[in-house]
C-alpha cells in the first residue's frame, strides 16, 4: 500500500528474450570486434550481465591485421576502424571459445572466409569448438582478398557463402549485413532463401579521415568503417527497412517463420535499445560505447531498460516490440508506394 492507501502492484520486469532457440537473460549482446579476441575478456563481459557475447571475427588462417592506427575517434560520436580482421586462425581460436563459454552465456562465433569453402570450414570448426551460434560476417569492409568488393555488396556471392555455411553446420546462423548497399532488403531476401535464422544489421559504414597537417589518411589501412553514436539513426532506418521487408515477405507467403533482427549501430543507452526494438529488433548489440564507459556500459543499459519498462508499465519486451513500425509501413520502402 502506498501513502494514499492505494494498492501498488509492482509488476516484475522480464527482460529474457528468445534468440534462435536460446533463452537470453536479456536482449543485450556484445558486438563483434570489441574485447572478443580472447576468452578471458569475453568472460569478463559476460560477468557484466549481457545476454550473449559475439567473438572477434575469426577466419581460416592467422592474420596479423593492418598497421596502426587501426581505431580512431576523429570527432564526437564518431569512431573509425580498420583492424584488418586480425585473428589467430580458427583452430587456435577454438581454445578461446572454450574459455568464453565459462562465462555462462551463449557464445556467438563471428566468422569470415576468403572463399566460400573457408567460410564453411570455419563455421564447422567453431561448431566443434562449442560455439552456440554463428554470425556470418560478409560485410567487414576490410576483407581485401575479395578484390575490394565486399561479399555483402553482391547478392550472388552472398547467396553462395550463406548456402555453403548452411550446409556446413546445424548451429543457428546469423548474417551480419552491410549498410554500404543500394537496397539492403535484397540481401534480406537472399538470407531468407538460404534459410538463415537471424539477421544482424548494421556493420560499419565506409569512411575516411584525413589529417590536415600531416596531409594523409589517418588509418593504417587508409580506408575504414564508421561506428559510434553518429551512425545510430542510419542503423535504425536499416533495421526498420529489414523488419518491414520481412513482414511483406510473410504477407506474400514467402516466409513462414519468425526471423529475429539483431539491431546494432551506435547504441549508447537503454533508450537507444528501446528505439531499435520499436522498429523490430529482438535483440541489440553494443560495441563502440565501450569507448565512453568501458564495460560498465552493459549493466547501465540493462538497468536502464528495466527502469524504462517499469515506468511504461511493460513486463516483457514483446509488449512494445514493432510498435513504431506501423507508421513506417507506407513510407519506408519504394516497393510499398
Amino acid at each position: 500500500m502506498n501513502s494514499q492507501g492505494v494498492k501498488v502492484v509492482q509488476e516484475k520486469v522480464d527482460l529474457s528474450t528468445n534468440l534462435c532457440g536460446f533463452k537470453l537473460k536479456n536482449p543485450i549482446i556484445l558486438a563483434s570486434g570489441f574485447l572478443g579476441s580472447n576468452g578471458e575478456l569475453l568472460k569478463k563481459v559476460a560477468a557484466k550481465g549481457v545476454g550473449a557475447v559475439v567473438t572477434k571475427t575469426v577466419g581460416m588462417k592467422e592474420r596479423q591485421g593492418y598497421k596502426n592506427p587501426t581505431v580512431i575517434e576523429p570527432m564526437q560520436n564518431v569512431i573509425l576502424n580498420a583492424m584488418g580482421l586480425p585473428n589467430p586462425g580458427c583452430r587456435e581460436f577454438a581454445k578461446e571459445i572454450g574459455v568464453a563459454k565459462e562465462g555462462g552465456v551463449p557464445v556467438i562465433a563471428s566468422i569470415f572466409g576468403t572463399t566460400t569453402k573457408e567460410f564453411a570450414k570455419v563455421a564447422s570448426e567453431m561448431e566443434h569448438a562449442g560455439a552456440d551460434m554463428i554470425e556470418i560476417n560478409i560485410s567487414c569492409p576490410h576483407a581485401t582478398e575479395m578484390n575490394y568488393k565486399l561479399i555483402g555488396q553482391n547478392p550472388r556471392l552472398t547467396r553462395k557463402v550463406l548456402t555453403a555455411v548452411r550446409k556446413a553446420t546445424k548451429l543457428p546462423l546469423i548474417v551480419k549485413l552491410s549498410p554500404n548497399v543500394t537496397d539492403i532488403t535484397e540481401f534480406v531476401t537472399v538470407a531468407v532463401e538460404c534459410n538463415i535464422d537471424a539477421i544482424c544489421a548494421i556493420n560499419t559504414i565506409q569512411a575516411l579521415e584525413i589529417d590536415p597537417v600531416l596531409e594523409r589518411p589517418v588509418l593504417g589501412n587508409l580506408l575504414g568503417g564508421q561506428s559510434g553514436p553518429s551512425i545510430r539513426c542510419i542503423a535504425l532506418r536499416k533495421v526498420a527497412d529489414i523488419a518491414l521487408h520481412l513482414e511483406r515477405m510473410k504477407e506474400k507467403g514467402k516466409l513462414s517463420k519468425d526471423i529475429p533482427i539483431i539491431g546494432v549501430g551506435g547504441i549508447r543507452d537503454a533508450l537507444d535499445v528501446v528505439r531499435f526494438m520499436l522498429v523490430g529488433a529482438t535483440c541489440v548489440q553494443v560495441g563502440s560505447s565501450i569507448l565512453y564507459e568501458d564495460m560498465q556500459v552493459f549493466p547501465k543499459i540493462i538497468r536502464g531498460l528495466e527502469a524504462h519498462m517499469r515506468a511504461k508499465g511493460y513486463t516483457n519486451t514483446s509488449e512494445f516490440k514493432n510498435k513504431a513500425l506501423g507508421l513506417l509501413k507506407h513510407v519506408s520502402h519504394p516497393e510499398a508506394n
Partner: protein
Amino acid sequence: MFRTPRPTKIVRIVDEAERVKTFYLQDAKVARSSKAGQFVLVWVPFPANKLSNTKIDLDPHDFELLDQIPMSISCADPANETFGITVKETGETTSELHKYPVGQNLGIIGPLGHPFSYKADTCILVGGGIGVAPLRFLASELAARRRKLIGIMGFRTKGEMLFVKEMKKMFDELIVTTDDGSYGKKGSATSCFGKYLGEHRDQGLGRDPGIMVYSCGPELMIKGVLNLCEQFKLRAEVSLERYIHCGIGICGFCSINGYRVCKDGPVFPSAKLGNIKDLGLFRRTSSGKKESI
C-alpha cells in the same frame, strides 16, 4: 580531446645511448596532465625518406614500414609544454622514427593508461634496459615530492646505459649493474635487488608499509622482482608491455589474462598480479595468438 592522432612537433632530439634517442615533443596536454607510467601512441606518418616530398605519391608498399607504437613517457615539462619519449631502435617503425629530424611532426594520442601511484615514503625503483625510461619520469616526480629514492638499474653493457648521470642526482642511493661488468656491479638488476633486500632485511623492510617497489623492464626481470617482493612482503607496481592495436581499451588484443595492458595497465599493482598467470610465460601477437615469451 578526441582519441585520434594529433600532429605534434619534434623540438629536440638527444642521443642517449647506442640506438636510443629521446624525442622531445611540443604538446601541452601530455606535458601538463601525464603521470609517470602512462604512455602515448606515437604514429610515424611517413617513411623518413619521404618527408621532403612536396607531392605525396607514396607507393602503398611504403606504408608497410609504418605503424603507431605505444611509448612510455620518459619526462614531462609543463612549463615549456614539452614531453619526452625515449625510443630504442628495434624494428621498422622505430628505425624510421630515428631518422626523423627536429621540426617534423608525429601523430600523438594520449596520455593513456593507468600510471604509477606516488603513494610511498621509501621508493625502490628497479629497471632494466629501455624500461628505465618511464622510471626516469617516475623518479623525477617522486624526487619533487621528497620521497626517499633507491634505484637499481641494470643494463647489458656500459654503452647501453641510460640516464645514469641524471638519476644519480635524483636518487638517495643508485646502484647500476651491467651484465658484462663494464660499469658498476656485474650482474643483473634482479640479483642485485635480491642481494640488496637480503642485506637490509634487518632494517625491517617487509614490515614498513611506506615502502613501494616500482619496476619496468624485460618481463622475466619483472617476474624475478615480483618474486622477491613476495618473499620480502613488499608492495610493488610494475609496468607491462604487450602488442597494442587500439590503445584505448576497446579491441582487447593487448589482454593478459583478461586485463588490458592499454587500459587496465600498463602499470599493475602486485595485488592484481596474482591473477595474471601468463606473466613471464605467454604473450599475444598482433593476431591475438598466444605464444611463449
